[in-house]
């Protein structure tokens, strides 16, 4: 139901192969190849379907793609993003179901920018994986990947990411961060990787796996919240900045609801 709300808020037409300025939506039930042409600014909402498809998106020179990707079914999709000179690609990724998604980004022109904010919330015996590979193939590109994961019950969550900096891709500026919380018997695996062949670069990555802040929970309970509410509030806080920075601002709220719904089921 919430997914429907997201689609409704979005107000978008089914995406054609060439995206013109405006808002578009796509149900990932078959492989597609899309282009955002030079200088065009487009929004795209992708909802997965029970399938394993690949979606190729070319973001041309100076174009800007703002994309929200929602995994809510058992899917295994491969999203290939190619960004040309001065192009920009902003992705918000949300996963609330056993699913696999692999973003493979090629920064193929100078001054190209890629940003991904992702979140996965897994419960029960969910198995979920988010892979984000970013290839800095040209100098002066910027990328930032932040993926937050929550796993409870006997769920397994996995983040894997490679930042590849090609020889001569000087002045690359890249950040990669994987932050995770586990509850119960859940398992989380994170593989943040750097592969760097240029020397004038700023690259950092970080990963944390931990539990919720017991003191904060205590603090909230002292103010009268139940243990369940305190935990829920904290988890919502943990992931909310990801959706609050949603690539498409007007669907931030229903996205947050989708996640809250899942968190309530923890």
């Amino acid at each position: 139901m919430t997914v429907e709300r997201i689609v409704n808020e979005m107000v978008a037409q089914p995406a054609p192969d060439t995206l013109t300025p405006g808002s578009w939506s796509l149900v990932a039930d078959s492989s597609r190849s899309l282009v955002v042409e030079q200088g065009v600014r487009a929004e795209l909402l992708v909802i997965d379907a029970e399938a394993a498809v690949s979606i190729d998106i070319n973001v041309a020179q100076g174009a800007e793609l703002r994309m929200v990707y929602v995994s809510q079914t058992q899917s295994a999709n491969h999203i290939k993003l190619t960004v040309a000179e001065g192009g920009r690609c902003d992705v918000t990724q949300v996963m609330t179901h056993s699913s696999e998604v692999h973003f493979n980004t090629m920064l193929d022109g100078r001054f190209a920018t890629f940003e991904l904010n992702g979140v996965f919330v897994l419960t029960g015996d969910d198995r979920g994986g988010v892979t984000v590979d970013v290839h800095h193939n040209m100098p002066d590109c910027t990328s930032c990947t932040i993926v937050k994961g929550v796993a409870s019950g006997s769920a397994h969550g996995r983040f894997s990411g490679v930042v590849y900096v090609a020889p001569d891709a000087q002045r690359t500026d890249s950040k990669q961060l994987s932050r995770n919380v586990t509850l119960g018997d859940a398992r989380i695996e994170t593989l943040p990787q750097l592969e760097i062949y240029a020397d004038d670069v700023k690259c950092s990555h970080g990963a944390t796996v931990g539990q919720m802040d017991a003191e904060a929970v205590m603090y909230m309970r002292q103010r009268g919240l139940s243990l369940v509410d305190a935990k829920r509030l904290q988890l919502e806080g943990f992931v909310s900045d990801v959706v609050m920075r949603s690539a498409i601002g007007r669907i931030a709220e229903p996205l947050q609801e989708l996640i809250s719904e899942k968190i309530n089921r923890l």
Partner: protein
Amino acid sequence: MSENTNNILDSLEKSDYKYGFVTDIETETIPRGLSEDVIRLISEKKGEPDWMLERRLKAYRHWLTLKHPNWAHLDIPEIDFQDVIYYAAPKPKKQLNSMDEVDPELKRTFDKLGIPLEEQMALAGVAVDAVMDSVSVKTTFRDTLAEKGIIFCSISEAIKEHPELIKKYLGSVVPYTDNFYAALNAAVFSDGSFCYIPKGVHCPMELSTYFRINAEGTGQFERTLIVADEGSYVSYLEGCTAPQRDENQLHAAVVEIVVERDADVKYSTVQNWYPGDKNGKGGIYNFVTKRGLCREGAHLSWTQVETGSAITWKYPSCVLLGDNSSGEFYSVAMTNNYQQADTGTKMIHIGKNTRSRIVSKGISAGMSQNAYRGMVKVARGADNARNYSQCDSLLIGDKCGAHTFPVINSHNPSAVLEHEATTSKISEDQLFYSRQRGLSTEDAVGMIVNGYAREVLTKLPMEFAVEAQKLLAISLEGSVG
């Protein structure tokens, strides 16, 4: 990149290996190649008991079923294992009773290596078990150590004199089934060091072993076993050098450390095997398995400074089996020219309240490739496990590579694991600032590199820290401003 940095690179490439001399000593070798007969021959030459031969053969038969691993970030040329000489020992003249009887050539080699094998050692307070090629030549300070019940001898001797300890511990941390090179080592290991610290004993001196590959075409397969019994403490040093040769030499060692309840072991290595020349010809292939097992409340700390070898493949690891045990890994790996290093650690948290800390500093120059590979694993029952990892890379020049491959795997919700990594280069601003104060470019680079590695270098015992600093400087020597 500025003219200046290019100059530094050029001169980096010109700096030569300082330990590239060959000692002219008669060595006894066996024919090239590997077969059950060769293993029988090795075992016989060493006068081993039958049970040891059986172990070797079992490992060999297992090895035959294995394929060479290729997951590392390394470009390893195919190695012909039938083209290696598996045993080389300085020809025995007669039983030696005192230092004076040691072959003067051999002594000179040790002098060149800067090993204080004689009386200076009393002052230095270091006991050295020198392994040249494959047989332990002389072990010093054994008497002093024996008073405390500490056993420090070659592994061959230990097999003969302390079979109960060897049977109990050898292969208990790194079984022959562990990996390709562990199996090979278990089959053909020629010698190595054995060290046993009894319950509650604090070893009064740093124990030290020097490895050196001398004979041409020989593989060195040494085996080290350290057992620290309950509540004991030992600091163990290992240093490595090899002569300069055009062909590649193989080094596949296994180090096993057993840290019993509440014991504390500190293991430090400065590895300076011949890295090959500036065109990537020759050099040691260094494929090593090092692992320690920590029982309840035990502590194991690995510190390594890696500047040598053409190819390094090495992951000193800690299995934190007992509750409240802890492991540390401090590493500086420097690669230059065509060197390749793939090194890091594994921290396996099994016991409750286990803690680990990883600090890795990679330095790549020339055309080299330097990879950190690590794994932090928290098993289901490892409540309150904590890990902190920090992996930094420093790049000198734009033709080298730095890579970080950490795996963090948590099966326990109370675990807190943190990993941080950065990549940087020596900035033009730092060089300008230092030179404005009167330092040459070469000194400034050396100083900055040593500053960068400082956190690890300070973990080394004093004598080693000085040597390690010099080694880093040697690799940077000859730089022109």
